């Protein structure tokens, strides 16, 4: 299995600012995803990070709010832009080697917006 390093592990940010979360994997992976988990809730898929092209966003999530980069097969970033308290959540990076493989997760970034 992969080692997935996610940074920062937590942050407290002021409304109106932006935060970029990094996800680094110790091996090349085909698929990378970003999830959001609100307190006490399940995981919601934000987008699939595509290497060398624009991310594929799920319904309710847009690129202007959650820009994603994936310059290579081991690294991705998620930016939470123009934050509001409603963006307070845990953001999780996950990877899979192929479409039939289970997901492997980073430890998440716990974001609090004040």
């Amino acid at each position, binding site marked *: 299995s992969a080692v*997935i390093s*996610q940074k920062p592990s937590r942050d407290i940010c002021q409304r109106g600012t932006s935060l970029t979360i990094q996800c680094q994997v110790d091996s090349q992976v085909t698929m990378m*995803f970003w999830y959001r988990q609100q307190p006490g*809730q*399940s*995981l*919601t*898929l934000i987008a699939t990070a595509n290497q060398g092209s624009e991310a594929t966003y799920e*319904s309710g999530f847009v690129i202007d709010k959650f820009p994603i980069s994936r310059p290579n097969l081991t690294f991705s970033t998620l930016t939470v832009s123009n934050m509001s308290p409603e963006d307070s959540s845990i953001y*999780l990076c*996950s990877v899979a080697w192929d*479409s*039939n493989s*289970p*997901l*492997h*997760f*980073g*430890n*998440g970034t*716990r974001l609090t917006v004040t």
Partner: protein
Amino acid sequence: SQQGEEDPQALSIQEGENATMNCSYKTSINNLQWYRQNSGRGLVHLILIRSNEREKHSGRLRVTLDTSKKSSSLLITASRAADTASYFCATDVNNDMRFGAGTRLTVKP
């Protein structure tokens, strides 16, 4: 959007007892997966069961799948305090992974 629903939402048992969690889903699936999440951590994959399988074992874990009822169960035998965590089922529908709301399991020593 969510696909699976876990039942119960919370479960509290004594160490040594068995814990059973159920997951129901709505559409046909390629496979169903169970994950564990310790507080403040990422999810850890436990077991994957394909749509053509009915039962799978991994150590103290036993997963069943009934595609006719669109349901799955996760059994943890001889539970330990370290099993305290949230457990999520996730359904794979054409490579689209959807997570349920989870069951919060507490195992008392």
